[in-house]
Structure formats: structure tokens, C-alpha cells
């Protein structure tokens, strides 16, 4: 059999890459081997376009126990406890089949975390859809949200935070990024190493079917109109099996017989076996006849490339197999010894007694192609930056605020998060609806605070500063609950990397995120890259989603974003030059994205967050809410809703549009008791952090200077009902 140029192309391999394969193995590959190369060298698995830039991320720090390179990153939270977390995309599958695509996305990220030995304690997600009026949007939103809930709820992991935004740039390419946070004792961390020559390799979990064969290469294909018709074998999630797999794996880990373990994610059996052998510098010999399958007549190619869900691969101490098999029997899951660790650094796969694969492990896993793709600043960007962010003039500020509160990107997300079990596990201290979720670490007085963020309009107008803003805002959200941001995970969603302007956006965004990470002391410990997010030739906005995890040493000292009681003093902490470039105001009023995003002073940001945390830890604050999209008017309104408390705010500004709706980093609305005000201001002054007393909580209305005077109930009504404009009335 000879490999044809067509086969090479349909496997997404370039002629150069194919020559490289020939050179590496010194012969023509079998079809199965070609399939293996194609998935291992796909963008999704090899990061061939992104890797050289990802090196810029700071990844170290005394708190980091595991940085990028494993299934999830891990940070130290003291007392022998640690937190494992990661974020991952499932964009393309979710566009094709929103429910199953999103569900299996959640399943995949859960496995990445529990394969490290961590019990998942929280799920988050970051979603991007097209315009609310686009004919596909409502259907996609309904399916994706139901799918995320359907999976996470069944597994019993609370979904505690997330974000959802709408913009025309996602009309033909939605984003579904899912994140899981897990708790693990530091001496019980597992890693994906196939160590110990002679140790058996065990396959556990669901049987293998013909699901999603070529999923990994699909994720690296540009969508075109025809793919609406393309109906690849969609993977269906089985959260029931996932829950059993989770419990069985954690129980099996307790036996002490497991040497290494890894989930089968994209590229299934292929990537898990190659990655485990590669990390350990070993080889594996595997017999595919031993792999549990659910369809007769599966070929070696199909068995190696299937993306059936809810499966894991583990290496076990020789002689102790039965202890592991017993655990899986108890949980009524398949488990089968499929191979053994070898010392020759080769992957040998046997099917029906014949050797169908014999490849060197290291070149496949480590020496995948690496591209420094050309980069060029888009020629349209300067003109866009120099254009006016807003074109019309405005005056009726009350009406505008009402309209803003009910708009798709600012209105209440209750429709979404009420479909998620937010409190299973009985540890969710702060539910969705505040700046970050707070989840107690069971049996301790510690808690983690976590949030996801991305301002993709800023990233579009300026990928560097947009990236920096995104990281800063995410960390700020975590600080707003009182927690110290420890580390971040990311999911870099971009267009086609073969286009220089996309690669430029990528490089700039990574640089911006990296610099903000350094300044704020928040290293990146895990992440994921999703490229080729384009439809009919146009790319999404650069969307480098960030998830931050922070630590509250004493969970009793935390606050939420909601005003607490009448008479409390409202203070604006921090502050910066404001801008309407890329603002929500410009978008709501004019559907316009132009100008420059606000400047960000990272030193100031750091000091503002530090001071905020110090005050919360001392119990001096009653609430804290960061001012982000929509500016201060929107942020103040949000503070009012939960407890239905108004406020009287005396803000002075020359230009109400900028003053009310201008955006800028490093701003936080806090409240405190009247008698702590003087001390706080003295302290802020000493620390060089701007702080401005701006008003008092109370009354039925939100009043802001001379410009705004609206009933809180009216604002809340718009805000509560806004989402029905996206998904329709119930």
C-alpha cells in the first residue's frame, strides 16, 4: 500500500511535514501511522504555531507545584493542600452540535483535572456567541448552556462562574471554553508518566467506538459554508460514566498501585500513550485486540484515533493489576490490560497479531514541527485606533442606563446559571452573580475564589493591552472577594495562524497577558490554544480567555459585590484615565468598535488590588465590585440589585458620557461603615492609592450626580428581563 498525496492532504499534513515523516522513520508510514502523525502534529496537539510564543508566559513562582506540560497546572494553598486547574476549548464541536459539543467539552476538562488526582470542586465556562439577532444564536445558546449543565450537574460538580458575550464576529464560530478547578493533597498528586519497564498499561472507562475520528484535525480546520453540511461523527457525552470514572479513579489512586495516569482527550489512545511514554522516556507495546470496543470490525486506525469520551489510560505497578481491576469492577466499568511499558523508546502496536505501528516516541511527541509563522500588524488597525469611539451625541442618561442594563452583554445571566447546579457539594460560598465565585475547601477554613474573563473588543483594538486588561481584570475579580490571585490558566482563541495579522494578534496578546502576569505575580500554569476560529474568511476577535484561581486563607473574611445596608459609605478605589474605545456604551448605542482601549497602569493595578485585599482581610469592607464593561454607572447599578438598595452618588464630571460609561482599569467600588472611612482614606493616601468618597447606600433610587436618577426596581426589571431578547420569552 502506498500513501497518496490526497491522503496526506486529507490528514492535514503539508508536503514538507510528510517528507519529515519519511526522514524520521526511514520508510513509508502505514495508514495508521499516518493517522497518528496527523493527530500528533495537528495544531491542537502539537501547538506548532503557538509554542514559540507561549514560552513568553511566566510559569514559575513559589506557589507553583506544576506548571504547563501536564494535564493541569497545580498551585500550593498551604497545609499540604493544592489546587489543580485548567481551561480548554470545544468551539468547533459545539457549533456543529451545541449540546453534545459543550457537554463533552466539560467532560474533557474534568478528566484533565481528576487525572492529576484532584477532586473537581468547581466548573467555570466562558462563552461567545454571534449577535443576538442572528438566526442561529438562540439555538446555539440554548444547546450549549443545556449541555454544560447536563454534564456538570450529573457529575456533581458545581458550575460557579463564567461569562457569556455576544458579538457579530462570532456569528459563524462560537467559543465554548470550559474550566475545572480541583482539590488535591500535595502528596497525592498523579502525573502522566509511563514509567517502569515491564509495568502493565491499563485501559479504563467507556468502550471505544467510531466517535469523532479526526476530531483533533477537525479542530484545526477552517470552517467554511460547506461545514454546515459536514456532519462528522459527533461525540456523545456520557456524564454518568464520567461520574463513575471519577470515583473509580480516585479510589484506584488510593491503592498506591498507579504509577502514571492520563485521560484520553483529543486523539484518544494515540496522544495518551505517546505523551505518557514521552514524558517518561520509555516505550509502550500495546495490543489493540485487548481494547474494549463497542462496534465490531474496528480497524487499528479507528481504534487509535477514536475520540470516544470517558476513557483513561494508566500504568500500574507490575503485580498489582488485580487491585486496580477490582476497583473498576466495583464501579462496573471496563478495565483491560492492553500493553506494557518497554525500554526501547518505541510505540509498538499490534492488531490481530500483526504489527501495525512501530514508531519512535520522542520525535512524534517532542519533535513535532515548530513554526515561527510570519506576523504583521493589520494595515487597518491604525485607522481604526484613530477613529472616534463614539459618533453621536447623547443626553437622556436615565433612558440610556436603562437600555444598557437590559442589553445582551450586560443583563442578568440568571437564565444561564440557573441551569447549572451551583451548590452541589455544599461548599459554594459565593454563587454566580458576584465578581468571583468562592468555594470552600472542604473541611478547612480556606476557600478558593475563581473567575474567567476576556475583553475581546479591547484585544481587537489592541491585542497587547487587551491581553493585559484581560489578565488584570480577571485577577481583580478574584481580589474583589478578598482572595489573593495565585495563578492563571488560559484559552487562546484566535483565527487562522497562517495569516500574518492573526499571528501578530496572537504574539501581541500573549505578550500583554505575560507582562500583566509578571507585574501582578500571577504565573500561567496551564492552558490551551484554539486556532482557525474563522468562518467564511473572517476571524473572530482575538479572544485570549483567562481563568484565575486565588486563595482566601480565612473564608469568613470575604465580601461580595452587593451593597449591604442603608447608610454604608461608597468609595471609588483606584482610578485611571477613561476611554470609550471598545466600550460597551459604544457597542450598545452604535454597534461600534473603534478607538483605543483604556490605558492600564499595572503598578497601580497591583497596589489597588493589594490594598483592597488587605482591607477585606481586616474585615473593614462590606462589599467590593470592580468597574468594567459599561463603566461606573453600570457597576453601581449592579451593586444595587441583590439587596434592592439604592444609592446617592456625588460624582463630578464634565462629560457625562465619559464619566458614566467610560471604561478604565484599576477601579473598584467598595463600601464600608461610616466610622471606618477616615482610617481607610489615611491608609490609602499612605499607600499612594487614589480613593474617592462618592456616596451613600440607601433609598429606592440610584442617583448619580445630576445625570442619573432612576428607580432601582426599574433598572432591575430591565436587567432581569434582558436575556429573553436573546433566547426568547419562556
Amino acid at each position, binding site marked *: 500500500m502506498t500513501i497518496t498525496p490526497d491522503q496526506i492532504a486529507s490528514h492535514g499534513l503539508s508536503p514538507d511535514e510528510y517528507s519529515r515523516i519519511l526522514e524520521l522513520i526511514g520508510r513509508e508510514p502505514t495508514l495508521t501511522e499516518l493517522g497518528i502523525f496527523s493527530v500528533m502534529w495537528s495544531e491542537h496537539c502539537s501547538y506548532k504555531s503557538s509554542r514559540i510564543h507561549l514560552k513568553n508566559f511566566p510559569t514559575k513562582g513559589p506557589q507553583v507545584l506544576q506548571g504547563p506540560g501536564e494535564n493541569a497546572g497545580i498551585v500550593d494553598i498551604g497545609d499540604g493542600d493544592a489546587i489543580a486547574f485548567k481551561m480548554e476549548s470545544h468551539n468547533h464541536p459545539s457549533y*456543529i*452540535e451545541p*449540546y*453534545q459539543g459543550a457537554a463533552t467539552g466539560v467532560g474533557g476538562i474534568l478528566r484533565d483535572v481528576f487525572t492529576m488526582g484532584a477532586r473537581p470542586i468547581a466548573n467555570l465556562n466562558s462563552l461567545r456567541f454571534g449577535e443576538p439577532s442572528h438566526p442561529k444564536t438562540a439555538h446555539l445558546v440554548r444547546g450549549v448552556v443545556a449541555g454544560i449543565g447536563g454534564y456538570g450537574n450529573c457529575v456533581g460538580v458545581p458550575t460557579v462562574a463564567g461569562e457569556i458575550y455576544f458579538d457579530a464576529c462570532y456569528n459563524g464560530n462560537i467559543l465554548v471554553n470550559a474550566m475545572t478547578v480541583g482539590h488535591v493533597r500535595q502528596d497525592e498528586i498523579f502525573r502522566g508518566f509511563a514509567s517502569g519497564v515491564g509495568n502493565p498499561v491499563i485501559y479504563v472507562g*467507556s468502550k471505544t*467506538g*467510531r*466517535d469523532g475520528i479526526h476530531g483533533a484535525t477537525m479542530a484545526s480546520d477552517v470552517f467554511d459554508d460547506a461545514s454546515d453540511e459536514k*456532519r462528522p*461523527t*459527533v*461525540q*456523545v*457525552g*456520557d456524564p*454518568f*460514566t464520567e461520574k463513575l470514572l471519577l470515583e473509580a479513579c480516585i479510589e484506584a489512586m488510593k491503592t498506591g498501585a498507579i504509577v502514571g495516569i492520563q485521560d484520553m482527550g483529543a486523539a484518544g489512545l494515540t496522544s495518551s500513550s505517546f505523551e505518557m511514554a514521552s514524558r517518561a522516556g520509555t516505550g509502550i507495546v500495546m495490543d489493540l485486540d485487548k481494547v474494549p470496543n*463497542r*462496534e465490531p470490525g474496528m480497524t487499528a486506525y479507528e481504534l487509535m484515533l477514536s475520540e*470516544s*469520551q470517558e476513557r483513561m489510560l494508566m500504568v500500574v505497578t507490575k503485580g498489582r493489576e488485580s487491585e486496580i481491576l477490582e476497583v473498576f469492577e466495583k464501579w*462496573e466499568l471496563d478495565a483491560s490490560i492492553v500493553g506494557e511499558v518497554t525500554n526501547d523508546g518505541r510505540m509498538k502496536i499490534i492488531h490481530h497479531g500483526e504489527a501495525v505501528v512501530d514508531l519512535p516516541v520522542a520525535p512524534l511527541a517532542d519533535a513535532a514541527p515548530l513554526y515561527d509563522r510570519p506576523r504583521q500588524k493589520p494595515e487597518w488597525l491604525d485607522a481604526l485606533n484613530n477613529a472616534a469611539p463614539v459618533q453621536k451625541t447623547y443626553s437622556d442618561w436615565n433612558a440610556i442606563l436603562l437600555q444598557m442594563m437590559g442589553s445582551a452583554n450586560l443583563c442578568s445571566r440568571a437564565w444561564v446559571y440557573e441551569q447549572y447546579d451551583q451548590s452541589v457539594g455544599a461548599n459554594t460560598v459565593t454563587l454566580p452573580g458576584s465578581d468571583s465565585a468562592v468555594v470552600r475547601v472542604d473541611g478547612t477554613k480556606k476557600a478558593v475564589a475563581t473567575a474567567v474573563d476576556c475583553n475581546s473588543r479591547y484585544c481587537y483594538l489592541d491585542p497587547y493591552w487587551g491581553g493585559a486588561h484581560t489578565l488584570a481584570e480577571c485577577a481583580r475579580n478574584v481580589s474583589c472577594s478578598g482572595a489573593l490571585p495565585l495563578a492563571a490558566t488560559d484559552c487562546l482563541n484566535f483565527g487562522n495562524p497562517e495569516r500574518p495579522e492573526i499571528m501578530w494578534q496572537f504574539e501581541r496578546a500573549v505578550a500583554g497577558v505575560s507582562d500583566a502576569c509578571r507585574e501582578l505575580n500571577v504565573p500561567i500554569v496551564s492552558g490551551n490554544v484554539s486556532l482557525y476560529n474563522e468562518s467564511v474568511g473572517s476571524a473572530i476577535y482575538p479572544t485570549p480567555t483567562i481563568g484565575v484561581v486565588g486563595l482566601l486563607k480565612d473564608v469568613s473574611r470575604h465580601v461580595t459585590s452587593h451593597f449591604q445596608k442603608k447608610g454604608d459609605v461608597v468609595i471609588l478605589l483606584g482610578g485611571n484615565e477613561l476611554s470609550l474605545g471598545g466600550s460597551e456604551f459604544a457597542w450598545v448605542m452604535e454597534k461600534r468598535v473603534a478607538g483605543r482601549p483604556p490605558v492600564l497602569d499595572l503598578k497601580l493595578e497591583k497596589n489597588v488590588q493589594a490594598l483592597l485585599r488587605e482591607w477585606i482581610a481586616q474585615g473593614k469592607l462590606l462589599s467590593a465590585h470592580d468597574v468594567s464593561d459599561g463603566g461606573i454607572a453600570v457597576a453601581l447599578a449592579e451593586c444595587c440589585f441583590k439587596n434592592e438598595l439604592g444609592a446617592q452618588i456625588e460624582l463630578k464630571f464634565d462629560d457625562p458620557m465619559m464619566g458614566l460609561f467610560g471604561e478604565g482599569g484599576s477601579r473598584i467600588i467598595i463600601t464600608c461603615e461610616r466610622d471606618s472611612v477616615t482610617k481607610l482614606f489615611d491608609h490609602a493616601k499612605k499607600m499612594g492609592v487614589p480613593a474617592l468618597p462618592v456616596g451613600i447606600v440607601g433609598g429606592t433610587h440610584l442617583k448619580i450626580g445630576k445625570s442619573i436618577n432612576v428607580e432601582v426596581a426599574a433598572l432591575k426589571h430591565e436587567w432581569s428581563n434582558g436575556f429573553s431578547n436573546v433566547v426568547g420569552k419562556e
Partner: protein
Amino acid sequence: MLAKVYVTLKQGVLDPQGKAVGHALGTLGFKEVEDVRIGKYIEVTLPDLPKDKAEARVKEMCEGLLANTVIESYRIEL
């Protein structure tokens, strides 16, 4: 008139529900069960229409809502 619609998962698509039910039947003593697949059976009541018209209409309903044609097939009986 009554249109009957049978919605089943396409060949090769995992049926977690059928799998779990098959397993449960086994533990309940029905060891002979080899496989279980679970689909939907939908009855749609319509005003009387010529058969071909009705069929076309119900087909539209299937494509639009009743079946998820990415993973499911359907069959209509009138």
C-alpha cells in the same frame, strides 16, 4: 389525524441511556439482553390533510425541532 414519529440515534452514535438500561436489565436477571437502544416515539395530532402534504409538514417539523439530525434519524408514519 395522527402522525407518528420515531426518532433514533444514528448508527455508531453512542447511546449512553441504552447502555445503562441494558446493563441494568442484565443485573435484574435478563442476562439474554444483547443490546438496548433508546429513541423517542412522538405523536403529533394534526387536522386532516392529504397524506403527502401532512408528510411534508411533519418532515419539516422533524428537521426543525423534533430530531437532532446531526446525531439522530427519524421515520414518519401516517
